[in-house]
């Protein structure tokens, strides 16, 4: 049965035999590093916006009429 299972899933042999696994591994690494960079930038933006919002909030508290 196991043998039959592998015969109907020839993609396994192709995937590793042809070196495609390297390509998939490379793409996965690029995706995870890309995700990390995106999160890094997003965190920086949020922090910048947070600082700006705090500054505006402080200004509004100082000049309540304005």
């Amino acid at each position, binding site marked *: 049965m196991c*043998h039959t299972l*592998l015969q109907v899933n020839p993609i396994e042999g192709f995937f*590793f035999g042809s070196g495609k696994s390297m390509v998939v591994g490379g793409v996965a690494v690029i995706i995870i590093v890309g995700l990390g960079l995106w999160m890094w930038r997003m965190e920086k933006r949020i922090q910048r916006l947070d600082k700006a919002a705090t500054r505006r909030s402080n200004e509004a508290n100082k000049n309540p009429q304005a």
Partner: protein
Amino acid sequence: MRMIQRSWKIGGIALLAYVFWTTFTVPLGPGLLEFRDRNEAASTDGITKRIETYELIGLGTHWTVQPEELQLFIRKGDQITPLPVIDVINDTHAHAALLLPDTLPSKAWDVLVNHPVDGTLSLQNGLFVDGFVVDESARLPRPQLEERTADLPHHFPFQPRIFETIRNLMLHVPMWFTMFLLMGIAFVASIRQLSQSSGGSSHFDLRAQASVQVGMVFGVLGLLTGSLWARYTWGAWWVDDPQLNGALVTVLVYAGYLILRGSVEDERLKARLAAVYNLFAFVILMILLMVLPRFTESLHPGKGGNPGFNSYDLDSSLRAVFYPAVLGWMLLGTWMYRIRLQATRLNQKLQCLNDE
């Protein structure tokens, strides 16, 4: 301080990059797939004696390298006997003769293969003999079986029925661990929220909310990767199993937490109600995923007496990737939680500014 803050995030991503690369590029070790009757007979002397021949099928084996060194045995308990290898067809196929005494101590036998490159491989209950007299007291001559270790570069262990999908271990299990961590953070935040006086801030409530939101992402990913694995190993996307059903119910319970939050407008009431609900949700998580499956029959590895990736399954090659995967996913999850928390706080701050 800033350096530490940076390094754990970079470290998490670096660990995951290492995990993804090794997960997809490290080859699977050799193993035995089948030992089957060829429905042909070979004669030893060409005239009188006809012997059944069997086909030995391996996966990732190297039998054409030193084919004369390929040894085949069958074993039942401490009883072991060799079978002659007639012909090595290619790296993964060989023919053997079922040359056995008329009286055997058992019908079901494990098949063992010894090879200098692949080491000693076994196929449990790989041979079921028919047409022999079975006498449990029968004794076979014990040949010398010297177990060998594989002479191969770094590879993942061959596991019957799992095969190449063993790589999913680096995704599926750490995702659930990360969900547990995040739900644990939410649980602690909810306790601290409730321990505040009724007029206290919703600081911890926001933490619990952000943690559950990110934890839900990992929970759903855990369900998807588990379902994919089940399709390959059990033949169905979903089976009626206490572990699987428990996981789904847990995710639904936490979805209920988010729905509850959305249905209450008063901020203080929302914070307290959500915190109480979250305490129960975490207890349900523990019962459904950690306690109940251990007392019931389950297909899932590690549950109901079903051996999982424990001390003998999780060998050093898997550990070298699995532990960094657990740490990497947890660091990524924690980072996502922090960003989500910062975004929620910013949103709240901007709403206050707009109201003013």
